[in-house]
């Protein structure tokens, strides 16, 4: 489609010298046609109706109580944080090497980034004992090995899923003290185990396709003699 023909805008009131324009105020009133607008609107300029003034709250009763010190109210802050920028080398299906924590050295499959910025990751559990877990991008090396993750559905995991279970505290008497300690360790609820199995089932099928990949994920990464991390290609 041909673009609309636009003649370059000519100013109605050109500048003769800096500070001096050609037409006076009343001449410009006429040129701009403000008289016609007024006539169209019945002798007045058209204008928006003013919004109803916010009704002043009924005068508050003067309080007898004043706080001892003037407490400063903090300024309101409506900034919302964005999730951490994901490194370009980390895409869904990338094999990551975890560097810290009890799973250090484990090679693990990346599923997705959660809204908090943490990475959702799974072993798979059967292969290396890493459950569906959150991991910080900073403590991870991204390898260039990718796994096909199109069949895996990780939608039911979000940050709330991983929140700690709050238990009601019960007051214990001295006699019950020793017994109660045994009950404290609760096993994983069955649903979480099933979620793990569901995610891993699809993932394991994808891993079958590549030879040695399962053994690779089962082995831990370690630096051997002669390996220079700054020269290694991951």
């Amino acid at each position, binding site marked *: 489609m041909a673009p609309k023909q636009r003649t370059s805008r000519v100013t109605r009131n050109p500048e003769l010298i800096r500070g001096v324009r050609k037409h006076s105020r009343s001449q410009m009133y006429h040129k701009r046609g403000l008289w016609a607008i007024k006539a169209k609107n019945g002798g007045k300029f058209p204008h928006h109706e003013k919004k109803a003034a916010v009704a002043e709250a009924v005068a508050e009763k003067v309080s007898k109580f004043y706080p001892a010190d003037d407490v400063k109210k903090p300024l309101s802050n409506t900034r919302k944080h964005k999730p951490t920028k994901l490194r370009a080398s980390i895409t869904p299906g990338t094999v990551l090497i975890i560097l810290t924590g009890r799973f250090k050295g484990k090679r693990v499959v990346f599923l997705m980034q959660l809204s908090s910025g943490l990475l959702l990751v799974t072993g798979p559990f059967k292969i290396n004992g890493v459950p569906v877990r959150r991991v910080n991008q900073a403590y991870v090396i991204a*390898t260039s*090995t990718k796994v096909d993750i199109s069949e895996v559905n990780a939608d039911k995991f979000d940050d709330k899923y991983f929140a700690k279970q709050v238990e009601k505290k019960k007051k214990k008497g001295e006699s019950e003290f020793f017994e109660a300690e045994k009950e404290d360790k609760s096993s994983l609820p069955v649903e979480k185990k099933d979620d793990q199995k569901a995610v891993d089932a699809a993932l394991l099928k994808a891993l079958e396709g590549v030879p*040695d990949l399962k053994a*690779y994920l089962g082995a831990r990464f370690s630096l051997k003699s002669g390996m220079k991390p700054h020269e*290694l290609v991951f």
Partner: protein
Amino acid sequence: MPFKRYVEIGRVALVNYGKEYGQLVVIVDVIDQNRALVDAPDMVRSQMNFKRLSLTDIKIDIKRVPKKKTLIAAMEAADVKGKWEKSSWGRKLIVQRRRASLNDFDRFKLMLAKIKKAGVVRQELAKLKKETAA
């Protein structure tokens, strides 16, 4: 011990320092005691100190400061690339480059292959030992 590789026009050298590290270049002219004019098919002709060059066995037949086209033709005729890649020096460099570019997964597969090979070798050795012992 006489020298075998001379600095001469047409000598192919390997750059061992600087931006063109690892590239093969041809000495096209000698500037003075320390520097040579050097040229390669994918490089702007420039000067280089001899200290940055390692001479190779390969020499091509060119006149002093040939045109780029002549140089490329002479390199094709002498098959510099082929000779280099067949030479033991050239093969070593290719292997080094391959090893450096290995992925973490590749290194793992390499480890498995080494273990497998060592296992097979050890089995054969055990067989031979049994035979000589018997």
